């Protein structure tokens, strides 16, 4: 079997995107890629493509109801208004009937054999008319143990005035129930022969109390306790240069609200053993950080001149700290690069190469990590120029040593103009 290596490493690493099904399943299981934000984006797309609003379900729906739709508010207060109006009309009407009877017959011992006509009104006044009717001697006609709530049409019976028939109030209450399914019927009490007391009825409570009081569940707890200022610094890696100090610190603001602090050396390489897990607070323009549980030793400084780029400075007692999102500037190590006895990893336009400079300070070798090919060399440095004598043929190749504005330890700008960046390798030793 001959495996053909591609022209560059990127291509052969791309072969990872052409795996069999079992390998893909293995990757999906062991290396899940979807974070919460990705899941929400996909969920939103699914909902939209399915014809639903992205928020049209469950919690969101309840939240919409909580904000107050007319469905609930209208019923809860308009019933009182209409009941009061109906009560006035009924009282006036009955009083008028009584007065007319009294005036016409001159008989105070009158009886009403049929329910008053007002009971056929198709409004909520029926509930009140029932109450009024019950105050008369005929209340036995409209009372009884029968549950009339589900009866729908008694108008003919009532018109006939037959005793022991349910009143029209139940008809109206039935309709009322149908029209307002979510609303308790005001005059259900009629079946119990008890006076209707609209004023004491509890207002209709929308079934959203739980939603009103339920806390939102979409955000992690850590976000809830962090200030907006803290949030704005989350998930960012800052290179922190300190006035008058070479090298720099790294402040990595983690998603869980912690802060990972570490240090870079003058070559721009991280010291693994300097990593410290801290907590931090930002209150107003005061920035504090330190090891959790050891707040007495926290450092507190004042944030000054933050800007739109995300960079800001903090004035601590021991100096001004420059928090930069971008690459740090290691201005100090230009004169301090040590080649002798050091191995550097190089990357750039060429295949990745490892340069080892021997202890003698004049010789070394390099090897490509991809093919394992390379050669030995001797070298000499003059200012910011390094001259290599490569291999047995003694090919002379010159490069300019670049140190400024680099995240790597240094870079060689070769005579053809290409730049190769180098990392210090001691981190892995």
């Amino acid at each position, binding site marked *: 079997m001959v495996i053909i290596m591609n022209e560059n490493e990127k291509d*052969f690493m791309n072969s*990872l995107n*052409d795996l069999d099904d079992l390998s893909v399943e293995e990757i999906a299981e062991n290396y899940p890629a979807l974070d919460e934000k990705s899941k929400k984006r996909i969920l939103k797309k699914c909902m939209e493509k399915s014809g639903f609003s992205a928020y049209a379900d469950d919690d969101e729906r309840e939240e919409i109801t909580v904000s107050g739709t007319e469905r609930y508010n209208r019923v809860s207060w308009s019933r009182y208004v209409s009941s009061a109006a109906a009560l006035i009309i009924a009282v006036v009407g009955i009083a008028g009937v009584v007065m007319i009877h009294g005036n016409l017959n001159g008989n105070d011992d009158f009886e009403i054999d049929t329910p008053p006509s007002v009971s056929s009104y198709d409004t909520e006044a029926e509930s009140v008319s029932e109450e009024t009717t019950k105050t008369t001697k005929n209340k036995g006609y409209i009372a009884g143990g029968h549950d009339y709530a589900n009866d729908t049409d008694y108008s003919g019976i009532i018109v006939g005035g037959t005793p022991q028939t349910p009143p029209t109030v139940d008809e109206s209450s039935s309709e009322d129930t149908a029209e307002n399914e979510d609303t308790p019927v005001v005059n259900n009490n009629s079946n119990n022969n008890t006076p209707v007391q609209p004023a004491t009825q509890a207002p209709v409570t929308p079934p959203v109390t739980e939603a009103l009081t339920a806390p939102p569940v979409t955000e992690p707890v850590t976000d809830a306790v962090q200030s907006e200022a803290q949030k704005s610094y989350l998930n960012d890696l800052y290179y922190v240069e300190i006035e008058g100090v070479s090298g720099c610190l790294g402040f990595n603001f983690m998603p869980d609200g912690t802060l990972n602090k570490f240090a870079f050396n003058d070559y721009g390489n*991280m010291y693994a053993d300097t990593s410290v897990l801290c907590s931090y607070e930002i209150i107003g323009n005061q920035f504090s950080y330190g090891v959790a549980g050891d707040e007495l030793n926290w450092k507190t400084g004042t944030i000054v001149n933050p800007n739109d780029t995300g960079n800001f400075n903090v004035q601590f007692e021991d100096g001004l700290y420059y928090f930069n999102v971008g690459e740090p500037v290691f201005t100090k190590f230009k004169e301090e690069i040590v080649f002798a006895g050091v191995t550097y990893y190089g990357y750039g336009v060429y295949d990745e190469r490892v340069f080892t400079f021997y202890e003698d300070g004049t010789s070394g070798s390099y090897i490509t*990590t991809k093919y394992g090919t390379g050669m030995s060399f001797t070298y000499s440095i003059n200012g910011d120029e390094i001259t290599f004598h490569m291999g047995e043929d003694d090919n002379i190749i010159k490069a300019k040593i670049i140190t400024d504005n680099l995240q790597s330890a240094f870079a060689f700008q070769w005579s053809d103009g290409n730049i190769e960046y180098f990392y210090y390798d001691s981190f892995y030793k």
Partner: protein
Amino acid sequence: MTDSEWEYLFEDSPRKAYEYFIEQYGNLIYAIVLNKIGNCASREDVEDCVSDIMVEFFRNAGRFSSGSGSLKSYISTIAKRRAIDAFRQITGRNNMCSDIDDESIVIPPSSDDTEEEAEKRIFSQNLWNIVKSLGEPDSSIIVYQYFYNHTVHEIAKILEMTSGAVQKRSIRARKKIGTILRNGDYYE
């Protein structure tokens, strides 16, 4: 959960159904899609395709017969088919994939290039075996970097490492992979 149960859940609450489905099969579908179109599609394209697959599953819920295999296989089949459609759409839209071997990704090899296709498959499989053998966190770094196309900064967040450490470990891991490939130690 069977597809019928998914169907009931969807009728009861589409949002919850999708949420559960994403939770259970989201990463698998995402990986399948990325495996097919990761070299030429943007992340938005991939997520778009993933959502298409999920919508299609619920539209066809109830049609799946358990006698024809597992639900996972059924979903994988939908995912692969949809990913192929997405690949065609994307390549028709632009030429981002012009530098990759389209046929090898989406269409079973013909008899003419079977041998070459087989070699590529074997190489991919061996590469994957090597990546797994690197150990953590190097395996994760390589997978997230070259399979999921995450940036170093994103990987650093996932693995709770610094970007510098991720970058250096990646370099070292790739060097090791290169050495193993060069020495032929990957043969099983």
